């Protein structure tokens, strides 16, 4: 059943992406995020983090732009873990890829700075 879902999803992304190749690589994003939302605990969060890192790595490997929001979401998780420097790195990656995210990223950066002082 899962294989059918994957094939169907691929076909749909082709149609909606309107290009010969899908615009982005999203990996297992919806599944791991849903599982984390449904039961927020260490394992489900770890699985979602693995998924986010995989999307970033695979996108680079396939010469695709990283999908919108992914770097920011990963940075936000790192921020909550107290890894402020790493968080800033990913926030900047998001802003470089998508300049329209500037206002939002600036807000997150400000939040990071106050977090660091505490």
């Amino acid at each position, binding site marked *: 059943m899962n294989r059918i879902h994957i094939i169907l999803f691929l076909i749909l992304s082709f149609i*909606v992406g309107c290009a010969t190749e899908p*615009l982005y690589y999203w990996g297992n994003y919806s599944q791991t995020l849903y599982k984390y*939302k449904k039961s927020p605990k260490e394992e489900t969060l770890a699985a979602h983090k693995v998924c986010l890192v995989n999307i970033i790595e695979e996108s680079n490997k396939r010469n695709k732009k990283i999908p919108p929001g992914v770097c920011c979401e990963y940075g936000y998780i790192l921020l909550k873990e107290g890894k402020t420097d790493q968080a800033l790195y990913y926030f900047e990656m998001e802003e470089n890829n998508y300049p329209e995210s500037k*206002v*939002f990223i600036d807000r997150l950066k400000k939040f990071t700075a106050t977090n660091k002082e505490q």
Partner: protein
Amino acid sequence: MKVGKLFFLVICCLLALTACGPTHMTKYEAFPKMYTERPLAILVLPPINETTAADAKEYYATTIAEPLSFSGYYVFPVEVISEIMKNEGLYDTEALLNLPPNKFKEYFGADAVMYIWIKKWSTSYYVIGGNVSVSIRSVIKSTGTGDDLWQYEGTIIEDTTVTSIGGGLAGLAVAVIATAVKTAATDYVPIAKRANYLILNTVPCGKYNPKHDKDREEKAVLEKVMRTRK
């Protein structure tokens, strides 16, 4: 006589087909403001769940970013946004709806906001089949003018029937049980995602999609009831 009856049936079918067909408008005719305002950054608000299915909100929220990004838009990370909103005490429905759209431009730099209402999320199975049906109302509003740029209201139905593999009554019984089990324990994430893809198909493509601004003449099929294809 038989030929006459057949002819009559064919006419009836044709009439039914033309009468109940979907509205075929071009994307430009249906949503002209998407082309004049050209939003790029869309902020998707946590869906407003009007159903008793507690998980519907999460199913929907986790599957919207992917199809919307493929349509060519910058999509703010739904998860991060909803946590920030929660911190600001803006998680409940009323607070969100009452916030003027231009606040989202101020806070996050969004060009448009997407509101989603989940009106129905139901699972049903009957003797020889089953389905999941999702009724959605969704609106994209400009944060500049406050105007509605795009909207959809309708129902997506996914068939969860398991077709019988073995023949005869025993085979049918197995299929009936399989359908009931499958419908009850269906993985809703891919279903929600397919529903999102179908609904967003009518959205004119944004800047990151090569079809941006070239899809004016494309048909926006606005069916009230759509079925996902397997």
